[in-house]
């Protein structure tokens, strides 16, 4: 599935991202990946962390890239910016992609930049026709500048806007249809936003174009309690990527996989980063579910043939 985005020429052995579990490559684990080649089916980096002229971080990734399939996941393009994209930053991203030849390139349906200021968070968009026009224009621009298809990730959010005129899944589906980009389905984000905005996570899966999903993210989240004025406990789920994946998110992951089929899946863990063994164990859980769905799918395929 991921192979359609492959560049034709590359100096690396590992090209496409396999339909298996990978992990986000984070700084504390880099020495282990350079030295010991631990068992992860593929790796994903935050593209912006490798924008730079030189130094040991880039050298380490060049070494690691020899051994693993790689995906570049951006956090700074700000696809939802009303003022358009920053072409200098886009050129920096292109340089990273040209250098490391990732199998997949992705970004978020969110914004981080306004008035030239970068807020270092994935901020929410109103789901309006205007915002849809803007993000589609920006995605077209990015795909053209990068010379390849991108995947866009469904966001997690803590506010909704009065001006929104459509649900998030409709917004996501329209983006995919209009720009030809692929989907990065973050099932933790669906779970978090379903709680925060009181929608049904399964209905979300029914409404987005699952045939366009080329990658899945799973991650942990934080349960934030607020006491109301009258003392009532209110809960907001915060997408902090700071702990194990919740059972409810694994369930949603399995449901998504059963419908999409085996798909490259990434475990993201960005805060309270654990020992590498703990992260790899989390990826093995994803791998187990992937294997069981793969088995299901091949037996169903046999039935179809018969």
């Amino acid at each position, binding site marked *: 599935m991921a192979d359609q985005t492959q560049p034709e020429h590359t100096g690396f052995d590992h090209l496409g991202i396999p339909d298996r579990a990978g992990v986000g490559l984070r700084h504390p684990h880099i020495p282990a990946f350079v030295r010991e080649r631990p068992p992860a089916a593929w790796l994903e980096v935050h593209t912006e962390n490798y924008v730079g002229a030189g130094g040991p971080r880039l050298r380490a990734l060049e070494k690691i890239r020899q051994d693993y399939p790689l995906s570049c996941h951006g956090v700074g393009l700000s696809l*939802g910016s009303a003022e358009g994209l920053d072409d200098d930053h886009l050129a920096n991203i292109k340089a990273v992609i040209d250098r490391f030849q990732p199998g997949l390139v992705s970004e978020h349906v969110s914004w981080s930049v306004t008035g030239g200021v970068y807020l270092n968070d994935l901020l929410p968009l109103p789901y309006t026709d205007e915002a849809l026009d803007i993000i589609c224009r920006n995605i077209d621009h990015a795909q053209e500048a990068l010379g390849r298809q991108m995947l866009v990730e469904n966001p997690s959010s803590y506010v909704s806007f009065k001006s929104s005129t459509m649900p998030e899944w409709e917004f996501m589906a329209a983006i995919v249809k209009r720009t030809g980009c692929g989907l990065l389905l973050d099932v933790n984000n669906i779970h978090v936003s379903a709680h925060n905005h009181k929608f049904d996570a399964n209905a979300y899966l029914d409404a987005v174009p699952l045939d366009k999903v080329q990658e899945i993210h799973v991650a942990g989240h934080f349960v934030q309690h607020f006491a109301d004025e009258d003392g009532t406990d209110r809960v907001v789920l915060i997408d902090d990527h700071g702990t194990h994946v919740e059972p409810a998110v694994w369930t949603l992951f399995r449901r998504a996989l059963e419908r999409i089929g085996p798909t490259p899946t990434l475990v993201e863990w960005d805060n309270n980063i654990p020992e590498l063994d703990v992260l790899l164990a989390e990826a093995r859980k994803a791998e187990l579910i992937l294997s069981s769905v793969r088995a299901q799918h091949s037996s169903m395929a046999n039935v179809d043939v018969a």
Partner: protein
Amino acid sequence: MSTLLDIQQAFRAGVLGDNDRPARGFIVEDEISSDRRVGIYRNNTLISLSKALAACYPVVERLVGERFFDHAARTFVKAHPPLQPQLLAYGGGFAAFLDGFAPARSVPYLGDVARLEWARNEALFADEAPVVDIAALQRVPADQYGALRFRPHPSVRIVRSRWPVQSIWQVNQADEVAPVDLDRGGETVLVMRPASQVVSQILTAGDGALLAAIAGGATLEEAAVRAAETDEHFDLQHGLVAHLQRGTFSTVSLDTNRGTAE
């Protein structure tokens, strides 16, 4: 009708300000207030950017303590948010901010320690380049040495302070911090990354002046004159050999049209 730009500007004001008021009119309120909701984004932004600063300025943080650092960092983030979507490029203005940060007035060398840490950060991500070794100079006739022009390695930075800033940085690398005599005077520090590790070391006033002049485009002779004016103990041969041994330069050429010594 509000446009997306209005929402984004209002949201930015709410995130970098003290309350949600600028954004409130755009946000759906239910049993959880808009202030709580915008506050989540404010927290994410301030915490993640303060953490990025702490990663870049570990000695500054150690000198003032975690709580003071966090307060200083959040104040800096609100006044000087990033202008590029790259955390490794964020925080260059922190030293100047600390110079004027009233609560830090009792630690007058704090800004210069931050300058040194920023120089180390820049050196870490600077471009790769070859290093000129002494052997490359053996092909140059002795009477042409004065016309040599060197280009410093892209990672080279010089930090000058009226405080013993490298000594302060050095003692703070150990678990037990030895005292530094602040009256010992200023230091000129060379920061560079000749291989994979960033190194910083104290230069004599003459060696520092030599390098600064070379970095400014001077020939070796011109730079040597400036170094001798700065430091009566300056010894050109000693200073030049020391720079070559450190790997300070990435190219060398003769200041004529007769070719290069590379």
